[in-house]
């Protein structure tokens, strides 16, 4: 396998299906917001929007579940 092995620090962190939901959330919210406010359509906000939703979406959901 050699170089084909992923680095140890990169661990799998959830089922692909669960992550896909957050990509969909990011896509729908970003396209919706950007259609109204074109200032959001730039190379900085677009990628940051996706990373923020995929990163903080699952965290927020987990916290809400714990509170319940």
């Amino acid at each position, binding site marked *: 396998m050699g*170089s*084909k092995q*992923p*680095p140890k*620090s*990169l*661990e*799998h*962190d*959830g089922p*692909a299906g669960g*992550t896909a939901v957050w*990509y969909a959330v*990011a*896509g729908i919210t*970003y*396209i919706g917001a*950007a*259609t109204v406010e*074109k200032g959001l*359509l730039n*190379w900085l906000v*677009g*990628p*940051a929007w*996706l*990373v923020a939703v*995929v*990163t903080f979406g*699952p965290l927020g959901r987990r916290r809400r579940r714990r509170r319940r």
Partner: protein
Amino acid sequence: MSWAAHQFEVYAVQAHLPKKMRGRVSFWGIWLGDFTPDFLSKFWVYGITIRGKHYGASVPERWHRGWPGMGFTHTLSLGVILAGALWLWRRDRALTVGYLLGFAAHALTDVNDSVGTMLLFPFTTLNWSLGTWAYAATVGGGKYLDAAAYYSSLGLVMDLFWLLVVLASWRVLTREHWRTQIVPADPHIWSWLGKRMPERSMLALYRATFFYGVARMVAWSTWAHLIARPVINGVRHRGYPYDLSWTGPWWIRAKSLPHASPLIVLPATLALLGLVYWGTSRLWDPMGRAQRRLRT
């Protein structure tokens, strides 16, 4: 100019590397190379308006693609110079080759609009253009009119073409591809990021340019065809009219600069693309040896 095509071609280049380079060319190098031409020139194309006064290029197409102007930012010669400087600075084959491929992809795909690029600069300042769609950046219309024209013309087809190229190579977007092909080619950057964010965030960051490309294509198209109510030749329209004819759309004057015969543009562009791939392929092994020598 091309819009989301520039985001998609980053992944298309990554998916169509020569066999010996697969999994060894820096994704961030390709990204940076593809990003450089517009980063250096585009800010002044639309300009900015402060308290009613517009600051920006008086002739956007000359500023963006011509000479005198910033047209040299869209030439292969600048790509070679910057890639050479990157090599001298970092001695990193993966980054240098990725940068040159990304830069070349941007400069070559921009021959499609009616202004084109100065492919053979500095030997000639003639622009090379296929005139597939109208270059529509204007002082008055700004980004909105430019987007409306692009997404009403064959520019939309261009974006969809590159989207299909990436989707046909869908594995390039998978976690498996990212782990086995992308991370090993850029170990330092991903390792640095890995200490600061979880894997899902890094994977999202890798896919983010594709995401942004899809989003801007959908958002601008939606605005141009469902929301905007333009008045063209005194007639109010529900959305900008589509026109998929050559150098369309009909409702805007296609900008142009002194250019070479369109008949030789396609063969010349393909020849230059082949030359870039052949050149990087030939340099790949000697660069690898030089890199190893310097690091031992």
